[in-house]
């Protein structure tokens, strides 16, 4: 098992290098120099100051050297300073150790996504099992149709409709941010209640996005498992159907779900950009959108790198869970 983990960790290194190459290349695509944004808006800037700034960011060096210098810095998680007016280091903008733990952008986004993954699993797995054990029944037909509609619903549109419905017409849920204005004056219980209220719509939207795919996948995985020979054996020797499904089939049917969870991380990160933007949630997604729109290159590069790293870590964890659950993988 240890050797397996070590092997997986080693194989991450070239992938990570590739990610840095692509990230670096993307920034080179942008027209002009990255420092233009800082210099063009400043009428008093002298050519010398401009040159100094370019030297500071290493833009006067050949492109390969720039890349290597950047690589040397990001190993230490030093992504430089943001181009925005606060000019804070990129890593501090993403994960500010001075703020309360649950207010740090990285943690906000992770919390919402982990919450929705948990809800997705608790809903999707039973639906998938039930549909697969009674294929083409009325429940299966309805859930199949619901899955297709869920799959086709644009998350941002649903967010808009729910904002109209719950935020404006019924006026029972807040539609923006993570806390009310009077948050600091609330009692500890009141604080939890306030945060929960703010989280309902974003978590719902994020859950909705993944639910359809996951339950569909669970259904087909279960259907395939039920058709295998060992299930026929279990039935033939007279085991009750419940034990056949929940004890014998479920374990194997769940295996592909683990991989799917790992693979769904990039989609969740993309989704975060949209719903954090709509609901005004101060997480990494909102930061990404602002960074892109204001052409804050160091921040974009840092965020691309960190989200890719998160994806890889997620895949690693998924692979490890898979190896724990399925001994066949470890032997290979």
């Amino acid at each position, binding site marked *: 098992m240890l050797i397996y983990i070590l092997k997986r960790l080693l194989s991450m290194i*070239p*992938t990570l290098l*590739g*990610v840095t190459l*692509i*990230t670096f290349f*993307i*920034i080179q*695509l*942008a*027209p002009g120099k990255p420092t233009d944004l800082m210099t063009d808006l400043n009428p008093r800037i002298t050519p010398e100051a401009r040159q100094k700034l370019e030297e500071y960011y290493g833009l006067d060096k050949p492109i390969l050297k720039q890349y290597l210098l950047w690589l040397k810095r990001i190993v230490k998680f030093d992504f430089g300073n943001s181009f925005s007016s606060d000019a804070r280091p990129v890593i501090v903008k993403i994960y500010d150790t001075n703020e309360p733990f649950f207010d740090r952008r990285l943690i906000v986004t992770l919390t919402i996504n982990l919450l929705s993954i948990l809800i997705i699993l608790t809903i999707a797995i039973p639906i998938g099992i039930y549909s697969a054990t009674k294929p083409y029944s009325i429940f299966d037909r309805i859930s*199949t*149709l619901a899955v*297709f*509609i869920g*799959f*086709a*619903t*644009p*998350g*941002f*549109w*649903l967010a*808009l*409709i729910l*904002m*109209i419905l719950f935020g*404006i017409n019924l006026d029972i849920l807040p539609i923006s941010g993570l806390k009310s204005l009077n948050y600091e004056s609330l009692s500890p219980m009141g604080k939890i209640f306030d945060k929960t209220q703010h989280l309902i719509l974003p978590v719902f939207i994020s859950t909705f996005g993944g639910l359809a795919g996951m339950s569909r996948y669970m259904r087909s995985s279960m259907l395939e498992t039920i058709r295998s020979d060992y299930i026929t054996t279990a039935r033939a020797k007279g085991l009750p159907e419940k034990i056949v499904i929940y004890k014998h089939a479920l374990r194997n049917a769940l295996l592909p779900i683990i991989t799917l969870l790992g*693979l769904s*991380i*990039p*989609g969740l*990160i*993309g*989704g975060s*950009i*949209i719903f954090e*933007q709509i609901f005004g949630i101060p997480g990494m997604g909102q930061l*990404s*959108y602002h960074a*892109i*729109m204001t*052409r804050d290159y160091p921040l*974009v590069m840092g*965020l*691309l790198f960190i*989200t*890719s790293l998160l*994806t*890889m870590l997620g*895949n690693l964890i998924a692979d490890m869970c898979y190896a724990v659950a399925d001994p066949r993988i470890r032997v290979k």
Partner: protein
Amino acid sequence: MSKILKKIIGNRLALLGLIIVMSLFVVAVFAPVISPHDYKNINVKNILMPPSTNHFFGTDDLGRDVFSRMIWGARISLAVGFVSVGISTLIGITLGALAGYYGKYTDMIIMRFVDIMLCIPGFFLILAVIAFLGPNIFNIMIIIGLTSWMGVARLVRAEFLSLKEREFVLGAKASGASNFRIIFSHILPNALAPVFISAVLGVAAAVLLESSLSFLGLGIQPPTPSWGNILTDGKSNIEIAWWLSVFPGLAILITVLGYNLLGEGLRDALDPKFKK
């Protein structure tokens, strides 16, 4: 082909998908004929009118007919869907075929590249590139295509891995056919079924992606209508003009639903595993 068509027609959901896809196609092709008003026509006396017999889906904040704009929007959506899927399928087939056929280092390098692309959050990447290069329809098509070929590449590679050992390929090799000929005229035609299914599903994904981009202001730029950018107008008038939010969203939903239903129906019809 007629067998597949029969199966699609026999499957009610797939048939529904086929009908949706065909009708959208007709709407997109005949947009100039069908739309009752000029989609560019600004009429300040007619701002934010609710749906009526003259304006089926109401008018927007410049007094333009939303129904006509949505018909032209169908054109944009489908154009983006088809072109970007065309690009991603071409790249996917080429890289997947090379990896599966040649194996060894070629395979290792290509599959490593696939892994790298899968690690970078696609939507973030697309947003960043479009923001840097400027949002226009060509950039959007190309960039969606360049970032969504990985699934096709994996599919084609897997097909090639199993097909290249079969007798007909060995026979072609023995008779001295070139590698190029074996890849493209012997193996590829046998590997196209799953590619076709994933292309149909890919159109759905691309339509959804384009509308998200347009909604965030980095997609199709006004005055060119797209379902996504009509929704952006809907967001700014959310409290007074529900029709601006509801109809374009439904259009996206129905389109994506149609392509997904057709794709799944094709999968059932083509995949021998699901034969009853």
